[in-house]
C-alpha cells in the first residue's frame, strides 16, 4: 500500500513538471499562473510530504473551481535537499527558466532566509510557508517576503500565558542546538519573565539536532530538580527524549510545556508513551469539528486516504493565501502582488487569516491544549484555537524589530 502511494506521489509530481516547449508570446489569459515552490522534500520528509499533499489538494480545488482570474494554477515544485545554497540556484532556475510568477515554500529557517534574500535582490515575491525564524519578517524582513506559519515568537507567546499560571519557579529547558531551538527558548524566557518575574531557568540543555543523547540529557535535567520543563525538541529527538524521560520518571509530578508537540507528525510517533498533561501547541485533527476543518479533513482523506497533518494544513493554506493576493492584485505582476498581499485575507482549514501589513506575517494561528492518551494514541484535549494576531507583539515593538 505504502509503495503504491509513494509511487503515485512521485508520478503526479513528474506529471506536474512543466512542458519544455512553451509559447513565449501567447495570450497570458490561457497560460497558467505558475508558483515556483521549493522545499526540503528529501531532507525532512516527515513534515514536507504531508505538506506537499496539502498544496496539491488546494491546487486541485482551485482549478476545479475554475482557477484564478480565469487562469489555471500550476505549481512547479523542487527539492532543495536541505541546503540553502541549492535553494538559491533552484530559485534562479524557477525564475529564469520556468518563468514562475512568484516563489513559495521553505522548511528550514536558513533556506527560507536564502530564498528571501534572493527575492529581495531580484525583486520577486516570496511567500515562505514553514520557516519559523523571526528574522524572516523582522530583522531581515523586506517588501518581497511574506511568511505564513506562526513564528518561534508566536509559538512561545501562545504557551506562555498558561505556563505562567503553573506558578513554577525552577524551570529547565531542552531545545535543539540551532536557531529554532535557541530562539524559542529566548522568547519564552523573556515573555515568562514579564508575567512571572520570580521564574528562573536553572539549566538549558541544547542537544544537537537529530543526535540527542537522551539518557544524558534527561539525567542532566533531573539533576537540576526542576519544577517545570520547557521542551522544544521534535521528531526523532522528541521520541528518544520522551522514552528516556518516562522510564526515568523525569515528568512525574512536573509540569511540561512543549512546543509543536501536539502536531500529528510529532505526536503520532509517541504512541502509547505520550505523556499526559503536557501544555503544547499543535493540531487536534481527531477532535476538531468546525466546518472549515471538517471539510478540509474530509477532502484530504478522500484524496490521500490518510488524516492530514500540520504540514498538510500549511500546504493548503499556502495556496489560499497566494490566491487571495492574486485576486486582490488582479494579475501576477510582482509589485502589484506585493501591494495587494498586505491586508488580504484568506480562508484556511483553521479559519480566516490575513496578511499583516506591518510585518508581512500572516495571522494563521495554531491550537493550544494539553496532551492525553486515548486508546493507545496521543491526542490533544482542552484545546483552543489561538489566532496568530493575538500572539504577536504590539505594533511599536514590531516597528523596532523590523528596520525595513
Amino acid at each position, binding site marked *: 500500500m505504502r509503495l503504491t502511494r509513494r509511487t503515485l506521489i512521485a508520478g503526479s509530481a513528474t506529471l506536474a513538471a512543466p512542458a519544455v516547449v512553451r509559447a513565449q508570446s501567447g495570450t497570458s489569459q490561457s497560460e497558467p499562473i505558475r508558483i515556483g515552490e521549493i522545499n526540503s522534500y528529501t531532507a525532512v520528509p516527515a513534515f514536507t510530504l504531508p505538506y506537499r499533499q496539502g498544496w496539491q489538494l488546494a491546487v486541485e480545488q482551485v482549478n476545479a473551481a475554475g482557477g484564478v482570474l480565469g487562469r489555471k494554477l500550476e505549481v512547479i515544485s523542487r527539492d532543495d535537499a536541505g541546503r*540553502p545554497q541549492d535553494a538559491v540556484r533552484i530559485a534562479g532556475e524557477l525564475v529564469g527558466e520556468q518563468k514562475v510568477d512568484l516563489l513559495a515554500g521553505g522548511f528550514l529557517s536558513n533556506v527560507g532566509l536564502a530564498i528571501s534574500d534572493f527575492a529581495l535582490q531580484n525583486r520577486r515575491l516570496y511567500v515562505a510557508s514553514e520557516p519559523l525564524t523571526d528574522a524572516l519578517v523582522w530583522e531581515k524582513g523586506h517588501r518581497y517576503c511574506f511568511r505564513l506559519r506562526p513564528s518561534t515568537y508566536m509559538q512561545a507567546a501562545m504557551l506562555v500565558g498558561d505556563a505562567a499560571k503553573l506558578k513554577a519557579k525552577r524551570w529547565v529547558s531542552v531545545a535543539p542546538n540551532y536557531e529554532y531551538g535557541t530562539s524559542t527558548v529566548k522568547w519564552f524566557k523573556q515573555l515568562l519573565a514579564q508575567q512571572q518575574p520570580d521564574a528562573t531557568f536553572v539549566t538549558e540543555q541544547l542537544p544537537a539536532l537529530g543526535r540527542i543523547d537522551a539518557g544524558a540529557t534527561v539525567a542532566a535535567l533531573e539533576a537540576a530538580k526542576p519544577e517545570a520543563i520547557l521542551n522544544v525538541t521534535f521528531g526523532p529527538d522528541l521520541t528518544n527524549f520522551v*522514552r528516556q524521560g518516562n522510564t526515568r520518571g523525569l515528568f512525574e509530578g512536573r509540569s511540561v510545556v512543549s512546543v509543536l508537540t501536539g502536531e500529528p507528525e510529532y505526536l503520532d510517533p509517541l504512541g502509547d508513551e505520550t505523556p499526559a498533561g503536557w501544555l503544547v501547541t499543535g493540531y487536534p485533527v481527531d477532535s476538531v469539528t468546525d466546518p472549515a476543518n471538517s471539510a478540509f479533513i474530509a477532502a484530504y482523506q478522500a484524496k490521500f486516504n490518510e488524516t492530514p497533518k500540520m504540514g498538510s494544513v500549511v500546504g493548503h493554506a499556502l495556496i489560499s493565501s497566494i490566491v487571495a493576493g492574486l485576486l486582490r492584485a488582479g494579475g501576477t505582476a510582482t509589485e502589484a502582488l506585493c501591494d495587494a498581499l498586505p491586508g488580504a485575507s484568506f480562508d484556511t482549514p483553521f479559519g480566516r487569516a490575513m496578511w499583516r501589513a506591518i510585518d508581512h506575517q500572516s495571522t494563521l494561528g495554531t491550537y493550544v491544549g494539553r496532551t492525553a492518551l486515548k486508546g493507545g494514541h496521543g491526542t490533544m484535549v482542552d484545546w483552543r484555537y489561538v489566532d496568530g494576531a493575538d500572539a504577536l507583539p504590539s505594533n511599536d515593538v514590531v516597528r523596532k524589530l523590523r528596520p525595513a
Partner: protein
Amino acid sequence: MDAFLIQLLTGLAGASSLFLVAAGLTVIFGVTRVVNFSHGSLFMLGAYIAWSVLTRLPREPGWHVAGVLTAALATAGIGVLLEMTLLRRIYRAPELLQLLATFGVVLMVQDLALLIWGPDDLPLPRPPWLRGFVRIAEQQFPLYDLVLIAIAPLVLGALWLGFTRTRWGTLVRAATQDRDMLAALGVDQRLLFTSVFALGAGLAGLGGALALPDGSANLQMDMAVITDAFVVVVVGGMGSLPGAYLAALLIALLQTFGIVLLPKATLVLMFVVMALVLAVRPHGLLGRVQVPTRGEAHAYALIRPATPALCALGAVVLALALAAPLLVGPFWLSVLTEALVAMLFAASLHAMMGPGGMINFGHAAWFGIGAYAAALAARGLSMPMPVGLFLGPLLAGLVALAFGWFVVRLSGIYLAMLTLAFAQIVWAVVFQSETTGGDNGVLGVWPDAWAHDPRVFYLLALLLCVGGTLALRRVLFSPFGYALRAARDAPERAEAIGLFPARLRMAAFCLAGTAAGLAGAVGAYSKGSVFPSTISIGRSVDALLMVLLGGVQTMAGPVVGALAYTGLYDVLIRATDLWRLALGAAIVVLVLAFPQGIAGAAQHVTGDDAT
C-alpha cells in the same frame, strides 16, 4: 553524589551504544582497509528491519532477542550482497575509491528506505518489560540501559575470541598483514573478506536493532550515526576493537558530564576530543603504525605535462566557456559559475590529496573560511568586492598555515580525520557565533554594481577559478611539485637528498587552503549569502566525491570530476523525486566502470598513461 552515580551509569550505557555503532566499522577497516561510508546506512537498515520483524512478533523477551538477532543476520546478508556485487570489484582500485562507492550506496539506501518504510518515524512500541527500571540512589534508572552496559563488553569479548582463538580469526589476521602470501598458501581471500564484511554489517545491524527500543527507526539515523562511528574508531585507533571500546567510554563519559557544565558543547565536544587525542597520539589510543599491507601498495604513475591533443581540447573548452555569456541566459550562467567554483574547490583538494598524498575529510573548512571572510568584509565592514575576494583566500591560507602544523605530522586516515575534526570545530564556532550570524548566516553578499550583471560576474568567476586552477597546475609541475611527490612516494629518500617533507606538505596544505578560500569567496558573491552549511561534512564529502570521480592520480581529474558531479546533481535533482537513488546508482556505475576515475579511464583508452 547520587547524581554522579546516575550520570556515570548513563555514560556507561552511552558508551555501549557508541561501541556497538563503531565495532562493525573498525572490524571492516582493520581487515579490508575499506572506509565503509555506508556503515550508517546498514545501522539504519538494521533498525528498520528490526522494527518490521519485532512489530510482527510476540513481545516477550525471548522473542525480542530472536527478532534482534534476525535483524542483525538480515543486515549481514545485505552486507554480503554489497561486498559481492560492489566492493569485491574495487579492492585493488586506488585508495578511498571504496569511500566513493559506499557513498553511492548511502544515497541509494536513503531513497529505498523512504520508498519501503515511508517518511514517518517508526517507533517500536515498548512492552512493559522494556520500560522497566531499577531504583539506584533514589532515582529511576532504565533496566534496558543496564542491559546495554553489559552487552558491549560481551560483544567485545566474543569478537576478541573470534579473532584470536579460531582458525578463521587467524586467517583474517594473516590477511591484514600479507594478502599475497596468504593467497600463495591457497586461502580463498574472497570468502574471507566477504565473511568479514558480513560480520561488520551484522554488527551495524545489531547496533541499529539494539538502539530501537530507545527511540524510533527514522530516515536521519544514517547520517547521525556515521560521524560518531568514525570518531570512535579513529580515537580508538583504526582496526583496534579494545581501542574502540576505550574511545567510546571516553567520549560518552565526557559527553554525559560535559553537557551539564557546557550545554552548548554538544555540537563539537566529540571532535575536540578527537583533535586532542590525535595531537597526543597520532594513531589513536590503541592504534598501531599502519604498515602498507603487502599486495596492496600502488606505484603511482608519473605525471607529465599534457599532450598537445589535451591542450587543444582544453583550449576549445575554454573558448566555449568564454563565449557562454553570448550563448545562454542568466540561469545557465549561474549554473556554470557554480561549476567553476566547484572546479577550483575540487582542484585545491586534489593538490593536497593527489600530489600531496594527504587525504582531507574537512576541506570545506577552507572553502567556508574564505566564504565567511568575503561575506563579513562585504556586510560587516562594507568593503568593496575585490577586497572580499582578496581577504577570503588570504584568511583561509593563514588559518591553514596555523593548522597545518598539527596536521602534517599525521598520515593516512588519521590525518583525514584530524582535518574533519578541525572543520567541525570551525563549523561549530561559525554556527554559534553572533558575529557570523549563527545558523541564519550572512545575507546580502551580492557583487558590486559593476559586476552585478550575471555575464560580468560569470567572466570574473571564470578568470579567478580557471586562473586559480591553472596556477595550481603550474605549481604542481614546478620543482616544488616534483619535490612534493617525492616526499609522498618515498619520504626517507626525499629527506636523504635534502628535501624537508614536513615543510613541503605544510606548503601544499597552505596552498590548497588558499585556493579553496578563493573558491569560497567567489561562491559567496555568486550565491548572495553564506551559511554554516558551507562548512558542513556534506560539503567536504562533495569535494571528495568530485576528486575521486575524476581520478586522484590525474591532473585533469578534479576538473572532469567537478563538472561531472555538479552536472549530474543539477540535472537529477530537477528531473526526479528519486534523485538520490539515481545519483547513487550513477556513482556506483561510474566507480565500477572507471575505477581510476573518469579522467584516469580516458587516459587508459587513449593509451596515454602519463598525463
